[in-house]
């Protein structure tokens, strides 16, 4: 009797552990199965590329968010920083400001530098002045969105036929979009940094227990600043690529709510919101799930608003299934 009880207990724990590890993957597979059954065109190669291209901003910003959250923080300024990067690059590229050289390279560099400054600001406020991450990044969220609109004078800046557009559109031989390669590069580098470098372990140690990490001799201040800089730099890349793909930078809508998608991906991916162990692969899969929900709704002719309801329910359930039941 007692044995049976224990056995069932163990198997239940095993199921929980299994779900925790592979829950995101199952959800992903289920969504793909639903799509494949309901729509024959779904299994075309091009749909696959489209999924990877459309999920691009969510995937890479969720990687940046992964650094922040596993380091015990949160960054809600991601979407606004995307807008600043997109708008700044578009303005410089279009030569609207006469005192800047009209060059793509300069535009991209400026966009990344400014984003880095926002990240550094977030990091310094959090680590040096001990302000709460959500409050600091909330102010950056407000300021950066305002700055993006100021830079673009509130208008949508469009551009065409520049080499910059090519990044978003061009495909390598074999029909592989360039963006997918960039995506892959980001995933590999993030995995390497988080799992194989000292810095990666320091980030997760701080997220697990900041006090202990400090006592172990980790320079928590510096690592924390780095975390937020990384998040903002990745946001800048995401903003640039979105504007490259759409041939325009919309200061009001570019990256709007991107931070929420990124946070949701990290959470569905099974990384604890209070920091600690970073889970890279599941985060990427979760980012694709979020995009796949939208695609599923679109391809099946369901009203787009249902996508939001679905997203909301899936986010809550996925996080619920994966969280630590022992606590």
């Amino acid at each position: 009797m007692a044995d049976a009880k224990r056995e069932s207990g163990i198997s239940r724990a095993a199921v929980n552990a299994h779900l925790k590890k592979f829950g995101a993957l199952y959800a992903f597979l289920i969504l793909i199965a639903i799509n494949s059954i309901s729509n024959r065109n779904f299994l075309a190669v091009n749909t696959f590329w489209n999924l990877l291209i459309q999920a691009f901003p969510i995937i890479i910003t969720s990687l940046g968010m992964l650094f922040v959250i596993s380091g015990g923080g949160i960054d809600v300024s991601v979407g606004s920083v995307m807008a600043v990067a997109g708008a700044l690059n578009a303005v410089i590229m279009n030569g609207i400001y006469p005192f800047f050289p009209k060059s793509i390279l300069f535009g991209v560099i400026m966009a990344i530098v400014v984003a880095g400054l926002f990240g550094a600001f977030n990091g310094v406020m959090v680590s040096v002045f001990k302000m709460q991450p959500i409050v600091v990044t909330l102010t950056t969220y407000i300021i950066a969105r305002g700055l993006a609109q100021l830079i673009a004078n509130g208008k949508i800046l469009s551009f065409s036929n520049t080499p910059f557009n090519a990044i978003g559109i061009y495909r390598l031989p074999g029909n592989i979009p360039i963006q997918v390669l960039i995506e892959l590069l980001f995933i590999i580098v993030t995995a390497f940094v988080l799992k194989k470098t000292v810095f990666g372990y320091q980030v997760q140690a701080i997220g697990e227990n900041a006090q202990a990490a400090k006592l172990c001799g980790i320079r928590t201040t510096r690592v924390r600043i780095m975390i937020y800089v990384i998040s903002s730099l990745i946001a800048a890349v995401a903003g640039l690529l979105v504007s490259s793909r759409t041939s325009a930078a919309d200061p009001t809508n570019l990256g709007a709510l991107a931070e929420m998608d990124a946070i949701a991906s990290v959470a569905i991916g099974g990384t604890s919101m209070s920091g600690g162990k970073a889970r890279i692969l599941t985060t990427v899969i979760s980012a694709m799930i979020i995009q796949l929900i939208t695609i599923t709704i679109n391809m099946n002719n369901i009203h787009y608003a249902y996508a939001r309801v679905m997203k909301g329910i899936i986010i809550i359930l996925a996080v619920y299934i994966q969280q630590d039941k022992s606590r």
Partner: protein
Amino acid sequence: MSKIKSIIVKQSALVALIVIFIIACFFYPLFHTWTNLYNLLRQNSMIGLIAVAMTMVILTGGIDLSVGAVCSMISVIAAYLSFTENPLIILVLPLLIGTFFGFMNGFVVAKMKVAPIIASLGIQLIARGISLVMTSGETMHISGAPKEWLPKIAKQSVGPLPLIFLIFFIFAIIFIYILKYRKFGREIYAVGGNEDAAKMMGIRVDRVKIMVYSISGFASALAGLILVSRAGTGQPVACNGWEMDAIAAVAIGGTSLEGGSGKIQTTIFGVFILAIIGNMINLQGNVNSWWQQIITGILLIVVLMMQVIPGWIRNRKA
């Protein structure tokens, strides 16, 4: 001297409010006309209601990102229900629905143990989705007799004050009283201060959490009713980012986002600091509205710095 310093630090929100009020009076002669102040009170009652409830959610160590979406959804539902022409249904049912959404939020946080930011994000998406499903993104018109009386509520004055400001004021007073003098209020602080300790003291932590989220849902619904009354239509895409404004007001008020310490009074100062900044930029006229965000953000940082710098200096000395 040190006493003055400590007052400024403790009451940084009030000090900032007074300073900004004086600046506004000084530079903008139109600011301290009664019409302007009257509008200021009326416009900010909705965000005020939400911010007061948000304060309590944050005091328990949570956060509620669903408020804006629930507010806008309720405005749609109230407009939709106007075909019944029954004031009781139009005014009470939306409040119940809003409270139920808050309850769901609290249930997910307390019983399913999902992180508050994720739970309320989920509820936000669901609420926004529902209002879009109901309207396809168009505004929803009020039909029948309510078309006459519903918009009147927002225009009503009681004495010199707008009625909706009084609703907000009474709501705030009730919860200031509860936080300070009632058992439930002390429990909110205890849960936010140290959840495990609160549990060991016999506080029903889950119930307290579900209660505060329900209150937040109720406040959002109340704001939604005011919205439909002011706009005269249901607004499915309105209130975007209100959760951020409310959180900003709470943060300016000096309430710790980690929970356990803070006050509703200072949140109200925070609401009006943000309001006056916006009002000044409107009165300036020739300033682009996007400056408003930049200036708001910078002032937010300034007020927040006033709160953290003393601690920072103390740490450096130690």
